[in-house]
């Protein structure tokens, strides 16, 4: 405050009764202090640090889905950036009280309500910084050659909006409760509420009334299929910001007609936008979802490379090159006559969460769902809307290998045993370094067998541990040598009745003995 007064240029002293300039001067000083506050700096480091670390160590996903990336960092922004703004703004507004200098401030030109206004305005520079940070992050992601989809500006704008809301809440709390413990507790309670409302096992109506609506969608979807009411939610949060700021001014003693009118306007925006979030999903989105499920070809562009046709949803075309590298990797290792058959790799989405807790699916239902899935385009290999994580690569490689080996469409998550299992797992693992890494990662965390294919899709299969052990032994050998041996015994290895032990003999790898009866996988194949 003293600094702000000292900075005021002497010749143009403010007119008595116009505290606006003093408020702006205080806001400038407090804005800089807020940016330098340890809680804000720690928040910025926690927000950016882990992501920068991932990029530096090469663990970041180079195939981001922008329509997912735009909102998936909102909870973190609430926790660390909003939390930093909340604590720093609260401590700043309580500074006079903490230092027992409140009485001295009565001698200054700025009435309490205007001081509160200055503290509210002081959150703006940090808000702008967060907006720049969010925009830079998404621009860098969009510049990646493998980025898919497009970001929603309203989802991006929610990051700075949440920071502004929490900063204003910090100022309001300082006016209501003169204890510094309340701000961290509010942050914690808000984080728990947002997280709990986002759990898919709970009804999700409350989540849109919280500052950030956390969701756990089964998979990213093309932009035309997204149903998050992002624009209305941003308007709702903007209304909340106005309400909180006005409440802070009123708590500081401001009383006039303009405040009442602004309050009424903010309340109507908040209530209107809050209610509008619950409007049913628009017909266009519902139609697009039905089309994507029933007739995906209508929403896709296809591209043929050799004998393989790749069909991707709009926005996902940059991934066909990556898909092709994996498919080529599988086909390279099989005899020419098997590799030459035409393939269709079709991108599919599932908006129905098949992994909900407590959802029981019988084998018959599973098989019916798989048959329904294949009915749309028999023979097409399914690829999802995730890529670049190793698992997606290994799943696509596995499904292609299954089709090459068995000439059948992917089954309903049944185990693939015997020589076919060994061969499919080896073909998938040797395709590219990414599929090898994905196979190792899944093998390390799975029990009983290694699953191929996204569990959110009804199609996929698993290779039991015994077959997987033989395939792992094969993967440790030079791929060229194994491919020659495989080509020599192709007919026997791909026959349905050939056992894993026989495959071990043909390929010269040890196959572990059969486990005790109670631990064996039931083999349908």
């Amino acid at each position, binding site marked *: 405050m003293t600094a702000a007064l000292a900075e005021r240029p002497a010749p143009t002293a403010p007119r008595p009764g116009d505290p606006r300039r003093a408020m702006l001067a205080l806001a400038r000083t407090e804005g800089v202090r807020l940016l330098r506050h340890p809680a804000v700096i720690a928040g910025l480091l926690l927000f950016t640090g882990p992501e920068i670390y991932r990029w530096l160590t090469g663990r970041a996903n180079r195939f981001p889905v922008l329509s997912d990336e735009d909102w998936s960092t909102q909870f973190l922004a609430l926790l660390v950036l909003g939390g930093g703004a909340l604590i720093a703004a609260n401590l700043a507004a309580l500074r006079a009280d903490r230092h027992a200098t409140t009485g001295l401030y009565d001698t200054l030109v700025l009435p309490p309500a205007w001081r509160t206004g200055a503290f509210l305005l002081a959150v703006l520079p940090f808000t702008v910084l967060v907006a720049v940070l969010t925009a830079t992050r998404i621009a860098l992601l969009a510049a990646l050659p493998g980025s898919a989809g497009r970001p929603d500006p309203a989802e991006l704008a929610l990051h700075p909006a949440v920071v502004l809301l929490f900063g204003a809440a910090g100022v309001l709390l300082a006016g209501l409760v003169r204890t510094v*413990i309340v701000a961290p507790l509010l942050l914690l309670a808000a984080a728990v509420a947002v997280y709990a409302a986002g759990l898919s096992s709970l009804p999700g109506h409350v989540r849109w009334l919280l500052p950030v609506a956390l969701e756990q969608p089964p998979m990213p979807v093309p932009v035309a299929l997204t149903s998050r009411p992002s624009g209305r939610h941003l308007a709702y949060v903007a209304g909340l910001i106005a309400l909180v700021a006005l409440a802070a001014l009123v708590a500081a003693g401001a009383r006039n007609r303009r405040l009442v009118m602004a309050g009424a306007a903010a309340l109507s925006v908040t209530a209107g936008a809050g209610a509008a979030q619950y409007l049913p999903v628009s017909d266009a989105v519902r139609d697009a979802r039905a089309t994507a499920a029933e007739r995906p070809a209508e929403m896709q562009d296809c591209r043929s490379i050799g004998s393989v046709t790749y069909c991707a949803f709009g926005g996902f075309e940059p991934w066909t090159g990556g898909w092709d590298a994996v498919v080529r990797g599988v086909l390279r290792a099989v005899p020419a006559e098997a590799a030459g058959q035409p393939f269709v790799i079709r991108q599919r989405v599932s908006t129905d969460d098949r992994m909900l807790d407590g959802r029981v699916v019988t084998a018959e239902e599973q098989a019916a769902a798989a048959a329904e899935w294949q009915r749309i385009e028999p023979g097409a290999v399914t690829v999802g809307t995730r890529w670049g994580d190793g698992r997606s690569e290994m799943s696509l490689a596995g499904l292609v290998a299954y089709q090459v080996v068995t000439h059948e469409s992917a089954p309903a998550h049944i185990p693939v045993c015997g020589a076919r299992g060994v061969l499919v797992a080896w073909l998938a693992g040797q395709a590219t370094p990414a599929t090898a890494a994905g196979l190792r990662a899944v093998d390390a965390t799975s029990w009983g067998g290694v699953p191929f294919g996204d569990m959110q899709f009804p199609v996929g299969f698993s290779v039991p541990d015994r077959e997987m052990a033989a395939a792992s032994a094969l993967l440790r050998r030079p791929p060229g040598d194994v491919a020659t041996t495989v080509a020599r015994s192709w007919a026997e290895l791909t026959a349905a009745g050939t056992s894993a032990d026989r495959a071990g003999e043909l390929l010269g790898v040890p196959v572990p003995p059969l486990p005790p009866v109670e631990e064996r996988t039931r083999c349908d194949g």
Partner: protein
Amino acid sequence: MRRMSVRALPLLVLPAARATPWTAFLAAAGVGLAIVAVPAVFRVELTVEDLVGLLRAAAVCGALGLAFLLDDPAARTIATVPTPRPLRYAARAGVILPAAAAWWALVLTITGHGALLPLGGVTVEAAALGAVALAVGAVRLRSGDNGGIVAAPAVLVLVVAASRIPPHLALYVPPGDERWAAAHHRWAALLAAAVLVSVWAAVEPVRARSSMMTEID
């Protein structure tokens, strides 16, 4: 001199209880109880992982409350009284620790499902967070009057940082994970380190203290 001070410890407990700023702790303890009580009251079906998450959130509340408990506006003016700072802190700890333990027991009771949950591990996490809060507060009190306003944000930063570190060093691991034991060794190390720092920070920060003490003795 020193023996007399130690003998004064039991006499200090009641005044220490009166002088402790309880408001912050009670507010934090209340929020912590609410976090576990709301799902219990509404009988929401939660997984073991979600229940552990609730306990962890409650533990953060408890640590936030503890962060303020060493604050003493009179600390500077009584630096010269015969009862030294370590003894005053010991008296405070004699009040604070049973209160915090009782609160945590209440939190665990309300959460229920004791047989399913890894209560020991979660308790170590809670103790470590509380100890870090007290340690940061005590260090801050060596140079200022308000330990809590530094210790409370420090606890939050620690919690968020702990949940974002790379997987092989993870502190917050889901129950049943194979890294659970290793993660809790790290929590125990953090607890031990925080206790050591608290003990160090409890010594009165006076320059050339040893020579002064010799003169007084």
